[in-house]
């Protein structure tokens, strides 16, 4: 049906007669090009708007390519906004699940290029039918939208032990259930999930639009289990980006894995051949943790205590005892009183690779504020997202250390936890999410 629809759309010349997101952008592009005097570039963009065959070609400047060896939204320079959602699969029909993943892939390819989710778009369909795009992103640019998909442990074998889709033997060993960590106060209804979608963009409306349209496409196949909005990235994933601050007011993610560290990414981020089942090679494992911060008590702790807990200065972000943000922490340094400059229980020390067998993470978290909690306290914190090659060697040992010893725990509560295997990238228009897994 979608093929016919696509044909009809093109034959009827709809792209020329309807207001599509892409067209609005193209027109804006013409304006810019006119000023800059680059007429040829503008012409190419206009043609690109009618070219359904290639979503990536001629994409506007703030579009992130959808197709590639790895999924976008991992090493992509962290955007400002997040809408993350976990789904339960509610069908038992493997064919329907795969068909939905195909539809999702096509819709994501379109939306990341700044187009409407469906081929007719928000206003291009027949008046009697509900539009195949919800419309709130009409006229908005791609905003560096990335859509990243992952598969949770329960997709392979559900809580009752059933292999619903005949893929239990494809579960990667690295997708092992996370252990209970000291102090975990997890709420099951906002933890776990069979599938996840991470939508990141520089405009929150664009991120929400992506999730909303994918959830709609999935009606009857998946059901939203939980979702989380994030504002304000708390990590940099590229050296081009300045280090942002989390809600404790500290720079976060200074020592993050970054897109430029090619060798480290191979070693620490991407699943390599032989790590597990082939379908996961080139993919990465995402751990998400919703970490509520006890904002009010933190705010009345002294600057010295805050810096001791973090192990960095609040102003520059330099490790205690050093002067520049990117200086290596000197974990051996002692003050005049013989005490370590960077406390034994400080966050920086406990999370440092030297204390964790060299394990690193690519963190991609976001600040969240879900209003207030009824006691007048901000319901706020960090929605932590970390990508890695193998959580058993990376997140699990690091979090074990932190959960036992981190002085910061007094101000933190982990309320949600999830783990997903994010497959490698969708390579081209003939490929789709889950193709290698489901065959």
């Amino acid at each position, binding site marked *: *049906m979608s093929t016919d629809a696509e044909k009809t759309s093109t034959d009827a010349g709809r792209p020329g007669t309807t207001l599509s997101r892409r067209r609005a952008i193209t027109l804006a592009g013409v304006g810019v090009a006119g000023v800059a005097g680059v007429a040829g570039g503008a012409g190419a963009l206009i043609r690109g708007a009618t070219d359904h065959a290639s979503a990536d070609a001629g994409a506007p400047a703030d579009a992130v390519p959808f197709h590639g060896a790895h999924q976008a939204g991992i090493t992509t320079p962290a955007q400002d906004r997040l809408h993350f959602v976990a789904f339960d699969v*509610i069908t038992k029909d493997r064919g329907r699940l795969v068909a939905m993943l195909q539809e999702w892939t096509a819709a994501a390819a379109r939306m990341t290029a700044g187009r409407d989710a469906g081929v007719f778009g928000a206003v291009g*369909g*027949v008046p*009697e*039918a*509900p539009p195949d795009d919800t419309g709130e992103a009409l006229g908005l640019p791609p905003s560096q939208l990335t859509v990243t998909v992952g598969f949770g442990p329960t997709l392979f074998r559900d809580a009752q032990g059933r292999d619903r889709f005949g893929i239990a033997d494809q579960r990667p060993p690295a997708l092992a259930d996370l252990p209970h960590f000291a102090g975990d106060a997890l709420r099951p209804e906002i933890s776990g999930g069979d599938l996840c979608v991470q939508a990141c963009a520089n405009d929150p409306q664009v991120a929400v639009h992506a999730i909303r349209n994918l959830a*709609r496409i999935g*009606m*009857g*196949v998946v*059901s939203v289990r939980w979702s989380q909005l994030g504002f304000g990235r708390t990590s940099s994933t590229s050296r081009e980006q300045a280090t942002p601050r989390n809600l404790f007011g500290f720079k976060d993610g200074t020592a993050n894995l970054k897109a430029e560290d090619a060798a480290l990414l191979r070693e620490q981020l991407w699943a390599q051949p032989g790590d597990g089942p082939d379908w996961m090679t080139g993919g990465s494992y995402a751990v998400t943790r919703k970490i509520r911060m006890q904002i009010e008590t933190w705010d009345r702790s002294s600057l010295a205590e805050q810096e001791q807990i973090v192990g960095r200065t609040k102003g520059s972000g330099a490790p205690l005892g050093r002067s520049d943000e990117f200086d290596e922490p000197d974990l051996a340094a002692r003050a005049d009183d013989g005490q370590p400059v960077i406390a034994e229980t400080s966050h920086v020390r406990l999370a440092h690779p030297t204390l964790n067998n060299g394990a690193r993470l690519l963190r991609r978290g976001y600040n969240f504020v879900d209003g207030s909690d009824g006691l007048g306290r901000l319901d706020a914190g960090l929605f932590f997202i970390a990508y890695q090659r193998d959580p058993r060697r990376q997140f699990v040992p690091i979090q074990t250390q932190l959960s036992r010893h981190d002085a910061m725990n007094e101000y933190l509560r982990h309320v949600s936890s999830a783990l997903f295997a994010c497959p490698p990238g969708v390579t081209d228009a003939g490929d789709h999410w889950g193709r290698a897994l489901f065959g």
Partner: protein
Amino acid sequence: MRTTRFLVLAATGVLAVTGVTACGSDDDSSSAAGGGNSVTVKATDTTCEVATTDLTAGQATFSVTNSGSKVNEFYVYAAGDRVMGEVENIAPGLTRELRVELPAGAYETACKPGMSGRGIRGALKVSGGSAAPKAADALLTEATAGYQRYVTSQTAELLTRTGEFVAAVKAGDVAKAKALYPVTRTYWERIEPVAESFGDLDPKIDGREEVIEEGMEFTGFHRIEKDLWTTGDITKDGPIADRLLVDVKAIVAKANAEKLTPLQLANGAKALLDEVASGKITGEEERYSHTDLWDFNANLEGSKAAVAALRPALEQRAPELVKQLDTEFANVEKALGQHRAGDGWKLHTELSTTQLKELSDSINALAEPVSKVAAAVAR
């Protein structure tokens, strides 16, 4: 439909006296032609014996005797549970007739002891006559005529039941009024979008407390519901009950006179599911009685009736959609069916959040394909 109001009122009177009426008969001239198929049906609480299951095309008359202890119903369904004819409210010991025009084809008969569930089904084959495929427009005309019949049968029951409910309220019989409340509302909820199109009457009959505007009295079903389930004091509700019956009579007359288009049918089918998704799943509709699942089921049945009326047209225009609709209607029925309690339904408050979410998921899964029916009908 021209004289429907008169017929409905007359039928109610007759029903009260002799218990014989024919909700399923069609008023148009075609029903005069055709052979004289006469079929007796013996219904009990557990059986449904249809004397002949091979008929010739044309008019058939089913004479249904209820020798069980529960109130019964008898249906003739075409594929997809499209109601060809139905006779409701057959009290124990009574015989009622159903006259229905049946072209050649495969059908199902069903008795519904206790008036709930899928009923006791049996096959019915009709042969002979012309089976030439009908033009698309003719199919849509038949769809609206078929649905109009459905509306007429539901409004007739609505009137009867409202009368009984009002009588119980005025007699101060709290237990009986409580028992009749969800049953009465079933007939309202099945055709709610039709009723709701009469904007002034709907809030008087079905308005919830919060939608009542300044200067307007809180009346109707939900006012009496509140009194029945909160204080149990209905001694002052006589005038409200009388008023309810007057308003229901007025809306029934209007609904029966309304000429619906195929597009309205399609949108009505969707609107009914939207009712479920927004008001029943949340327990807002029946906040005092918690009988939301009765409404849920009635909305679902009404939506299915509208889609079933359109089915022959949809089979020509969008066969894939028909398959999807069948699957999803069956899924919702299965999900909801887990919460039956006797001949009725569990209370909304007896369901866990997980169970409500499962129902919500199944309704969403159904509402998506149903939302595509209008476009298929329009093209």
